């Protein structure tokens, strides 16, 4: 049995579809990343100690008084290119599969049907498994348009299914996903940043900054509460004398790094469990650990320390996962020794990429491959 503790990122609040999102993410981790091995996931919630986003008046309401000047070539082109997907896939097949899986899963989630969602996840997992096995399919250069591409990809996804117990049925999930992607694909084809939408990004960045400063301002700001909320499930996992894998998204990665690099925190865990603590693996996803380390914002930060810095003593292994389209990620390899950066690129729109990791079957599939290679499952 493996004990997994997942620490969420900024701007995560109870309510809405929070619980559904947690359940879906847990299922994908267990089925795909951990490949059906025995594992248990704890999801500590620290969002209640973050910034009260409703109180922020400085976030512009883009739906009210502001309109874009222009709109001739907006981020969602009216005329759909017949080869947009194919063109993008020829440049980066895995990224397109990642983007399709994010889009297909998002649509399935919106449909509210658990059965549709599960089928879509299986389809996307099959496509991701194929994209990991075959980096650049030869047929990409023998087909004419996106319809051919989607048909071939669906065939490959079906053939790559590990579990044949659930039939895939009529799968038009990728077709809808492709239609939904029209704008996002242009980020890859026309170059990043070009289509970024401030109306989407600004609130997200504001909340991100709010949560970060809320945490970093010190104990009185709620930092202790956040650390405590995260620490409790880690201690419970450590007591079980099994493999412990800690996964942190965005700010969650920052919190985990802060805890695992702080000797006092490790002493606390050691005292509670009766033995020294060291997680078998730390996975930071779309995180800013490297940036804040360079800015010396952690408990353990030392002035004038030379790069590369030491990795956190509380983790035996550390992987830092990113999507190049995610404007809120920062690499860690140039800042730390003993960390591996790896990318799970999608062609998701720049505004979506930061939250898209856990809807991308490329993420879970690549993580699965690495866990196997590292002997962790």
């Amino acid at each position, binding site marked *: 049995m493996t004990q997994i503790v997942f620490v969420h990122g900024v701007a995560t609040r109870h309510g809405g579809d929070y619980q559904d999102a947690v359940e879906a993410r847990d299922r994908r981790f267990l089925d795909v990343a951990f490949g059906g091995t025995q594992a248990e996931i704890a999801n500590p919630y620290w969002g209640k100690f973050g910034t009260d986003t409703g109180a922020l008046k400085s976030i512009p309401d883009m739906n009210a008084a502001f309109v874009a000047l222009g709109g001739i070539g907006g981020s969602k082109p009216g005329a759909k290119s017949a080869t947009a997907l194919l063109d993008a896939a020829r440049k980066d097949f895995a990224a397109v599969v990642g983007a399709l899986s994010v889009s297909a899963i998002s649509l399935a989630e919106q449909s509210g049907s658990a059965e549709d969602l599960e089928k879509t996840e299986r389809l996307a997992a099959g496509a991701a498994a194929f994209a990991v096995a*075959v980096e*650049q399919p*030869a047929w990409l*250069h023998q087909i004419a348009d996106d319809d051919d591409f989607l048909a071939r990809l669906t065939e490959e*996804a079906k*053939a790559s299914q590990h579990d044949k117990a659930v039939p895939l049925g009529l799968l038009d999930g990728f077709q809808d996903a492709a239609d939904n992607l029209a704008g996002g694909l242009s980020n890859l084809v026309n170059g990043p940043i070009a289509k970024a939408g401030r109306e989407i990004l600004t609130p997200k960045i504001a909340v991100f900054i709010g949560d970060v400063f809320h945490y970093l301002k010190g104990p009185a700001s709620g930092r202790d509460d956040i650390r405590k909320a995260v620490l409790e499930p880690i201690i419970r996992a450590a007591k079980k004398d099994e493999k412990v894998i800690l996964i942190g998204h965005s700010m969650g990665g920052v919190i985990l790094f802060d805890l695992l690099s702080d000797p006092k925190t490790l002493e606390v865990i050691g005292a509670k469990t009766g033995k020294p603590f060291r997680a078998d693996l730390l996975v930071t996803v779309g995180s800013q650990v490297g940036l804040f380390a360079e800015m010396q914002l952690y408990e353990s930060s030392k002035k004038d320390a030379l790069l590369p810095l030491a990795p956190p003593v509380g983790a035996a292994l550390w992987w830092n996962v990113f999507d190049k389209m995610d404007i809120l990620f920062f690499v860690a390899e140039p800042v730390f020794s003993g960390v591996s950066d790896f990318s799970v690129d999608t062609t998701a729109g720049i505004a979506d990429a930061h939250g898209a990791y856990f809807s991308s079957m490329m993420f879970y599939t690549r993580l699965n491959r690495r866990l196997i290679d590292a002997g962790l499952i």
Partner: protein
Amino acid sequence: MTLVYERPIDGPKTHAFVIGCGRFSHYPNDISRDATVAGARAIVAFLRDKADELVAPLSTIELLLSDPAVEQGSDRLDLPKSAFDPRDDDKVDPALLEHAAKAGSTWTKRCNPGDHLVFYMSSHGVVERDLTAIGLFEDFYSDEDKRFAQAINVTQLSRTVSTKGAAACWIFFDACQEIVTELLEQPDGSDALVLLTPSIRKLAQTPNVCMALAGSRFGGSAWAPKGSKPPFFTQVLLDAITRSAVALMPNLGWVVTGQRLLFDLGKVADASLEIASLETEALTPFNRESAFVKIAAPEVPVVVRTMVEAHLGKAQEMVAFDAMGNPVRFKPAGDVKWRFRVPADGARYKIKSKFEPDGPTYKDQEFDADPAAQIIWLTQ
């Protein structure tokens, strides 16, 4: 200019001019490329290794290198010393316009009737408004009034070099053919180096014996791996001229031919090196049966795929049998790719596959070991 190989030969001989430019001292951004220099070194190594297998034995190599790993003035060939290397040390002149003009002139003037001329360049590349391909030298952008003049017009060279009376000319251009607005806006174009300016009458009287191939299409990009390996087009070219792009010719045996290079390089890229996206472009019309280099025992690269590619890894068994029914090649279980080579003897092979009882079924497929490459798609 830098002469790195000089061997007296009686009769037809080959003269080569090789340029690898990866350092660009005047352009404001860092656009350095290690791979271009690696490509030039690999071509020099090939020419020296195959000096006597070339249809016209190798006589001279002029080389210019701008290696981003060193400062100007410190460029070196960095290959084992050849017995025919006339230099005292390993230094090579940088790929500057001035050196290219001198070396290029010397190279073309060496040509006697019946000789072969070889030109290879790897660098950044752009295109003119008249669709000609331009290779950039280290000092491009050094003159604010003529920013693209420190370059060579490779298309024009391809169209005119036959007038020197060679039996065959081989031009390989591994660079982008990028459309750059700044260049297109210049009324007189780049004013890039033109090595030969023959008269129209001379051109009309001379059959085109030049096979000129670029590693990118007009307006497209050539690609290279990061690090010290040659660019992809050069990798494929070397594979093809070393092993597979051959035809059987009277009196010569197996030889690499211009036609094979023109039409089959993409297949070699796919079957041999897993580069499915190589896009080459001929820079001048060519329809000759010219031969470049002899290959004693050529091989045919073969790639086998299932129509649904994901099925390949699920095959319990996949075997290539020879015409006698002997199993000669086996796909390792679980591998999602299957590539192998067979002697280029035209022999017939049969691929048989076996899957789980509830898995897919694929028909047996035959192929002949004909050059330059075999791409086998198994169908259900």
